[in-house]
């Protein structure tokens, strides 16, 4: 029983990442009808926003201290981050400690602007071209973005820690009456799940309760009619692209402490997110979220030793197997609307 709860929890954080990326992908597909292969790269850039903020905050003045020497006899160097000298050592250290949550503020404008540039500069020209061309050009863009990041940050993963208070683990089992140490769950993963829930809720609330969201939903249902009503639907869709990019970026920022950002993390997530979108149903936002969590949890269960003893290697392929079955027997996915990309 404790194993099952543990795997369920383990599935939640990965599921949250899948759900967030798939949500962005679906927003783009549902509004603009474009299959965006560069979405994983946006996730990765989000993670590198966290790295950048951490680097900026830890920029330091280096002072040589002649009174102390290291073992070679050189004067030892003392580096003081600028923020510590500006705001005092305690506030400064706290700022550095909280660099990942701070990066959220920094990442939102960057990702939105990046989304605008991508849509207006490149993807706009591909609406009338075949789906294959859209896939290929965004695939090329993904490679380019990934390589640019690699050129700036190198090929190695960069550890980016969570704030000190969230670093430990939480004995979840005690809370619901299990033995101590039976179900241990890192704090940051709980934060990630809560964060994902908030973002997903915010996106849905935005679409459901604002006039802007209403127009966007109308545009998703029937773009031409909305256009004929004198609404500039293209501009709103561009803004939605920016929002989708921001969602992917935020998913990346918060994922940085879970998995040290490296330049190809986006590609690794991309394939799975596509599978998630297909399982959930192309163009269905609730479907994307549901399928994200479902597949994340399924993957966690498949990696239990008991399951692996029966089906060796099932943890590696479970998501794909599910996707293949879904595409074959129900091409519109779990919650896809009738008639949307059924062929």
């Amino acid at each position, binding site marked *: 029983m404790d194993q099952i709860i543990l795997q369920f929890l383990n599935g939640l954080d990965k599921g949250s990442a899948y759900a967030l990326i798939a949500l962005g992908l679906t927003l783009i597909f549902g509004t603009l009808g474009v299959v965006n292969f560069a979405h994983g790269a946006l996730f990765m850039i989000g993670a590198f926003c966290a790295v950048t903020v951490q680097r900026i905050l830890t920029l330091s003045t280096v002072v040589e201290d002649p009174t102390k020497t290291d073992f070679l006899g050189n004067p030892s160097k003392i580096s003081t981050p600028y923020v510590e000298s500006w705001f005092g050592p305690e506030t400064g250290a706290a700022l550095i400690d909280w660099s990942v949550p701070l990066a959220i503020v920094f990442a939102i404008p960057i990702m939105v602007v990046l989304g605008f540039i991508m849509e207006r500069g490149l993807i706009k020209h591909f609406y009338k071209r*075949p789906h294959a061309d859209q896939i290929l050009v965004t695939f090329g863009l993904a490679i380019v973005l990934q390589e640019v990041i690699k050129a700036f940050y190198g090929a190695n993963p960069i550890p980016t820690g969570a704030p000190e208070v969230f670093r430990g683990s939480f004995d979840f089992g005690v809370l619901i009456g299990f033995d101590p140490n039976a179900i241990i769950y890192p704090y940051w993963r709980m934060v990630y799940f809560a964060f994902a829930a908030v973002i997903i809720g915010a996106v849905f609330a935005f679409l459901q309760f604002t006039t802007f969201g209403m127009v966007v939903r109308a545009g998703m249902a029937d773009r031409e009619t909305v256009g004929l009503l004198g609404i500039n639907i293209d501009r709103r869709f561009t803004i939605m692209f920016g929002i989708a990019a921001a969602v992917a970026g935020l998913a990346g920022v918060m994922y940085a402490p879970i998995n040290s950002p490296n330049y190809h993390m986006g590609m690794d997530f991309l394939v799975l997110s596509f599978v998630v979108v297909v399982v959930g149903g192309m163009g269905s936002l609730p479907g994307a979220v549901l399928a994200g969590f479902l597949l994340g949890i399924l993957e966690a269960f498949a990696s239990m030793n008991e399951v692996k003893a029966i089906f060796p290697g099932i943890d590696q392929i479970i998501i794909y197997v599910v996707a293949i079955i879904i*595409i074959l027997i129900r091409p519109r996915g779990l919650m896809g609307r009738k008639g949307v990309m059924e062929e």
Partner: protein
Amino acid sequence: MLGLTKKDFTMFIVVIVMVALAPFLLNPFPQGSSLAQMFNAGYPDLMQRFVIFGILVIGFNILFGLTGYLSFGHAAFLGVGSYSAVWMFKLLGMNVIPGILLSMVVAGIFALAIGYVSLRRSGIYFSILTLAFAQMSYNLAYSVLGNPASNFNLTNGETGLQLLLTDPRILGQSTTPDGSLPVTNFFGIAMRDSYDLRMGDWLFTFNAGYYLCGVIMLISFYISIRIFRSPFGMMLRAVKSNQQRMNYTGLNTKPYTLAAFVISGIYAGLAGGLLSSMDPLAGAERMHWTASGEIVIMAILGGVGTLIGPILGAGFNEYFKNILSKINDSVLHQWLGFLPDGIEDFLVTIIHPFVGKGWHLTLGLLFMIVIIFLPGGLVQGGQKLGRKISGRSRRDAAKAAEQSKSAAE
């Protein structure tokens, strides 16, 4: 001739000559000069890659170019072919022919199974299905099927499948008399045997493996021309232009697309078998989906749906990968040495991310530019350029067309 039209026959002859004379064509600079280190590509290893990837992309083009089905999982067949060939070398003997044959058969069966399922959907779903199958194969090859501790170690996981001194090799020998691994051969001709021809400062290498791959590539190319010009090829093109209409006329398109998928899978398996024959080592990374992406890139660069495009694309990609990765800062400084120091350093800093380890960036940018401005790839670019240069001949052609039209009337 050979059942080809005159135009196709000429092109085929040109390709034959190019393949036969590649050791000369790719080594235009004398050995040891700085230009040679950079631009010469006449090494056996690289030339083998040119033709092997040529085969792979020719096969991919039969599927994507003719039917328009974009497979994002073709690397799986390449990987399966590589593994089968290495197993043949481990169990049977070091002759490459059984290995190549087995790799084609296994890849064909694999393609039949995957294609049968994937082709039930088209468009983006087809791409994602093939991608999912390929990633599945990759993950399995990497983990369960390659666990050295288990009895069923098919792929040897992360290390990759390699020859061992203890392999049975029932038709050959497990070890050579001097106790080392035997080498792959074609009825006694070792694949790595080369004949060096020295002419003045120039050194040309004629490699046995390259010529074997070259001949196989020419055969594949010939078959692909025949497919393109056949009623079967016409049917595939019809699928690309409007599959629904085909179905409405009462024609079941599935067998045609499936046949195209299997053929292109066999091509990929053949390429994988050849890769293993040249260097008997097969790793799972050949099946990774980025490898599939690279196949797509090569096909697009050359020109999808054209005959010569795949060969150009594969050659272009491999050649520039090779050159770009060789350029480093000191080479750049040497090239730009005639400029004032400040400008030189500035230019080197600018170019630095695009060369050396950053070659991926350059090729990615190039790929995007091709997709955006030249959807027909290098072939279309060449045609445009040719038309621009010979603007007059086009006018002549127009005039001739007009004349023939009026004559017909």
